[in-house]
């Protein structure tokens, strides 16, 4: 039996709070990655991509199947297979993202706002059912051989215990976000994306291939969601065809909270929601975490109707 910890001891409480912070940040950085996809599509089209959660879910499945295939082909070194699986998942999901744009958005570009919105919801249902019927309606387990060693490896940073699993999540998220900021702020492609976001007509008059750039934004967002999916699959241990629903909803909320259309805002929103949820679970009750997360959202929207960082319109992509 475990020896019950003494809740009065301040040092212990401090280290537990740090642990909660780490857990919350891990959860939040995943929300942030998914939220980036929502925010980019909104920035460029002014629409919400409701199939984004499903792209995330496809990323989960792709990563697991890639790992399974590599495992049966004899490749077992986690240091090689895991990054490879994440990259494969990103590529596949990017493909699905582009397809989603082609089918649900491009044809309806001039239509009423509700048309692409509805077609995206339709896409979401189609993709979910496609995976359910063609893969499995049951759950799929993330390969234990990959997740277990990562979960059991822990590093102590002062009073905090960080598992390799969490380290992978932080490192990957951080690298991808830096990459995205660099791409959007420092490259010609990024400038083109921002130009399309600011004024689509003007951008096309200047000779930019608007359709291609929009498809590229979808691909980019989808690849980020797939990376998040691969990591969530690893972190939770199980995945199912409807796994994208909840996270999609939370990430969407995060994007709104941070100011939809704003890239740093999506990251900030994701981290705030992840931290709020875990702090609520720990200090109050898990039952309340939805309530506090959304209460914060409402409060922020009262004070800043365009979200926390929503005013800097020039940055939106």
């Amino acid at each position: 039996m475990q020896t019950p910890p003494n809740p009065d001891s301040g040092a212990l409480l401090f280290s537990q709070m740090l642990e909660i912070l780490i857990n919350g940040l891990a959860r939040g950085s995943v929300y942030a990655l998914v939220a980036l996809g929502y925010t980019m599509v909104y920035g460029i089209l002014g629409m919400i991509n409701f199939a984004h959660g499903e792209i995330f879910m496809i990323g989960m499945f792709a990563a697991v199947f890639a790992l399974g295939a590599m495992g049966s082909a004899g490749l077992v070194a986690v240091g090689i297979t895991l990054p490879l699986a994440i990259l494969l998942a990103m590529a596949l999901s990017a493909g699905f993202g582009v397809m989603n744009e082609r089918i649900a958005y491009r044809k309806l570009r001039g239509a009423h706002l509700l048309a692409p919105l509805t077609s995206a919801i339709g896409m979401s249902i189609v993709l979910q059912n496609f995976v359910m019927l063609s893969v499995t309606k049951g759950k799929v387990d993330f390969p234990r051989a990959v997740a277990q060693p990562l979960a059991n490896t822990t590093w102590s940073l002062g009073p905090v215990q960080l598992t390799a699993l969490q380290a992978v999540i932080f490192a990957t998220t951080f690298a991808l976000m830096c990459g995205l900021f660099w791409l959007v702020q420092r490259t010609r492609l990024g400038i083109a994306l921002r130009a399309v976001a600011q004024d689509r007509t003007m951008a096309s008059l200047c000779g930019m291939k608007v359709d291609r750039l929009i498809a590229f934004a979808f691909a980019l967002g989808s690849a980020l969601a797939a990376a998040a999916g691969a990591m969530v699959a690893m972190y939770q241990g199980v995945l199912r065809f409807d796994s994208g629903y909840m996270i999609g909803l939370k990430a969407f909320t995060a994007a709104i909270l941070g100011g939809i259309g704003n890239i740093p805002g999506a990251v900030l929103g994701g981290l705030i929601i992840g931290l709020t949820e875990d702090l609520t679970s720990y200090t109050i009750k898990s039952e309340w975490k939805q309530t506090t997360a959304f209460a914060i959202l409402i409060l922020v929207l009262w004070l800043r109707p365009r979200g926390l960082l929503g005013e800097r319109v020039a940055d939106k992509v």
Partner: protein
Amino acid sequence: MHKFRTILTAAFAVGALLGCQKKENTLKIGLAGVQTGPDGEIGTAPIRGSQLAIDEWNAKGGVLGLQIEAVSRDDEGKANQAVAVAQELVAAGVKAVIGHFNSGCSLPASEVYHQAGIVQITPASTNPQVTERGFNQTFRLCGRDDQQGDVSAKFAFDSLELSKVAVIHNKTAYGQGIAEVFRKTFEAKGGNVSLFDGLASEEMDFRATISAIQKSGAQAVFFGGMYNQGGPFYNQLRQAGFKGAFLGGDGIYDGELIKTVGAKADSVFITFGPDFMATESAKPFLAAYKAKFGQDAGGYAIYGYDAANILLEAIQKAGTTDADKVSQTLRSQSWKGLTGDAEFDAKGDLKKANYVIWTIREGAFAVR
């Protein structure tokens, strides 16, 4: 183009109408329950079990001289869908329903069956309220959460000698129901429930809750929920260094749980009916199930099989499909099934529900 579409639509509509014109010389039995979604796997098993029983009856010549037609419907494990399914079944003219699986579905659906005067036997809904509303024609061929949570709490206190347990549920009628009964019994025995909390049934990251469990000083965790969450919850508990027992109800009794937690999972204790699968009389059923569906029958399939057999036997014996007469017949005697002798009380519950404690041994469920 538009004309063509209109014609096509009209053709479909006419086709659909013609399809309904089939002559009614069959006895329709509704098989309702979750077949897709989170509980899809576990919920399909009893429906297949019932289907098997119906096939056997049809091979023997049916019931009351009529062939039996199974009308299977998926309620997706959702309450509103369950009501829609129930209305569809009533409209389709079923004479009785076997289902639903989830308590959250059986509760609203039974209102529809009650109003339509249709016999309902659920093979798996364990929430006490299912039979507590004075519905004369609602039956269940399984135990109740108050029995189940009770057995688990007594086992935790008496056999495992635990004094402090965290109780976590999935906020559903089933999960929260069983968790509340566990808490009541455990506290009545003098135990301490150090944390009582719920997580949405889609949630798969339990780490913050686990920190709270550890903070509360719990020696063990009771989980009121389903296998799809139970597996990752158990794994994450162990990853966080929590070594105490993991208790749960029949919702986590599914082979998929073992696939997630691994064959070496220790200290998992589940309440479920006695081990009927190992009995000699169940062998033909198990073989037939595997032959027809290409899968081993999960623990629930046998309940669906028995429910269908008992229902059809009662209809045969009553000589009518009239709900009141069939209900009366169901209560009047003891019914032989693979799950033992079933006797229904005035509420429609089994007079004797025998939950036992199961655990995971060598990669399979085994009675402790």
